[in-house]
């Protein structure tokens, strides 16, 4: 039987407009963030700017190749159509 709510901290960031007071919370390491939750954010979120060295890696490419890495690591040879 599993609990109906599961909580996972990221160990960090709530910063008010007043800023600095939160610094001492840094050390509070939460449980490790799930990689899928992280990739939801890192691959689909974040500001997209044109870097110097990644010009030809389009967003979709980045997500796509990373997902392929994910999937192949989980399922071996199979690929996911999406």
């Amino acid at each position: 039987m599993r609990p109906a709510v599961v909580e996972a901290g990221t160990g960090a960031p709530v910063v008010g407009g007043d800023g600095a007071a939160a610094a001492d919370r840094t050390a509070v390491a939460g449980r490790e963030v799930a990689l899928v939750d992280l990739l939801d954010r890192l691959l689909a979120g974040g500001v997209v700017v044109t870097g110097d060295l990644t010009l030809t890696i389009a967003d979709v490419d980045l997500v796509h190749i990373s997902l392929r890495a994910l999937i192949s690591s989980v399922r071996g040879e199979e690929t996911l159509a999406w």
Partner: protein
Amino acid sequence: MTEHPRVSYAYAVTRGLDPADVPAVGGVAGTGVHRVAEDDLAVVVSTVPEGDFDEAALRSRLNSMDSLERLARAHHEVIDAVAVRSVVLPLRLATVYRNDDRVRSLLREERERFGAALDRVDGHAEWGVKVYADPDATPSPGVRVSGGPTGSAGAGGGAAGSGSGRDYLRRRREERHSRDEIWRNAAELAARADAELAALADEVRVHRPQNRQLSGAPGENVLNAAYLVPVERTTDFTAVARGLAGSLPGTRLELTGPWAPYSFTVPARAAETLEAGR
């Protein structure tokens, strides 16, 4: 050009990060991070070997699960550490510039866009909420689906009469019934979460539901949403999420956070229109 050319890996745009308070973290290459400032804005950057971060290197990194995970976690660790110190606007994974001067010119070119985005997320944190249809999440034995040997439906009646078509059909009907109920409950919980949590958030983003094989999480993910919540509403938000969590059998709710505002670096369409109308 030196023998081992170096480039600048950029993590996030910040405002008000004290130069003396740059976090002592290793970053994606273990070389530490520093601040590249222009007026009131700064980008948190690592100086990294070009050979490890050019397009070909990145491509192969992103194609390997282990190195993708290392990169993602190192990137996140830096952003997390900065986010407790100042307002932060995360950059997409693997944003690399020739050098710090190029980062400075990025800050000059994009200062309006960055400034507006920092204003939007300042004083907020991102929270993740996932709703699952999960038969095992319920304390009630009646709604277990596809029970197998532990299913309550089949256990009593016809141990010897397992060949009975009528028993089989009844079992199937009960299984289907409870499965339907779990899906209904999960959909209802997702709708409630959407309404009650969104009311406490300034913005909402819905991510693609997570694939069970990738997440390893039990049950079927029916809602994967992110909420941008003002810090003063944190307690209310988490309380409502917890309240929703236990409310319907066969469902599970996962709350993650607080996150840096990864999912909210671009204004929502509606918010954009709203802003424009002011």
